[in-house]
């Protein structure tokens, strides 16, 4: 039997380990499983980062904040000095 494929659609599902599906990035308020607002695709090019305080953000979001003097190097959730896990 020969099958002729006229059309197909692809589908993929994406999920980071270590966070819940509903978890938001506190900075951009996007889902952690989505990319930060400056990237178009989630994944290794827009990774997550965990602090020792256990708060999680998109790496791009927290690095932008920490690069500002006004951040004083603190986690925006608890104002503790940010240290990456």
């Amino acid at each position, binding site marked *: 039997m020969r099958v002729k494929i006229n059309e197909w659609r692809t589908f993929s599902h994406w999920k980071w380990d270590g966070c819940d599906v509903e978890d938001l990035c*506190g*900075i*951009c*308020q*996007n889902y952690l499983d989505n990319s*930060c*607002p*400056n990237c178009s695709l989630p994944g290794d090019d827009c990774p997550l980062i965990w602090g020792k305080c256990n708060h999680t953000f998109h790496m791009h*979001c927290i690095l*932008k*904040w920490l690069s*500002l003097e*006004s*951040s004083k190097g*603190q986690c*925006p*959730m608890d*104002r503790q000095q940010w240290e990456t896990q």
Partner: protein
Amino acid sequence: MIKIWSMKKDTENGAKKKPKTSAAQLRVQKDITELELPSTMSTHFPNPADLLNFELIIKPDEGMYKGGAFKFTFNISNNYPHEAPKVKLTQKIYHPNLDHQGNVCLNILREDWKPVLNLNAVVVGLQYLFLEPNAEDPLNKDAAKDLLADRNQFKAWVRSSMSGRPVKGEPYDNVMA
């Protein structure tokens, strides 16, 4: 063949024309959707397409500033939420935490801003200023001194300043709703 190529070109041009929504705009959009304004506050967007510039009107229904209508302008930069919104009062009032140019002394609009805060936090903070004027860390040092020296006298001066009468020779705007 030719057709396919020209179609591709067309879509490329189309994509370029479409203005890109910035990270700040996306975040403000979320903030505005989640904004829960009590009946004492309302927003006004002079240009509905521009979410980064709008007005907030606060009409306190209790406290010494009851009966006034205070109009603030919000100017949100493209660095939002990494930078606090710039908030200014458009009227000149007698208040320890607001100077005569309309600058606001609210910690979360200054040194305590952090990007996990949102517009709701700012709006709640502004409303609180009218319920509890704070004589510590003032922008209008004279008003703060007056509040500490004699709360009742201060209250009387707030009331008369709100209807546009001067306080100790200093003129104020009529802000009565």
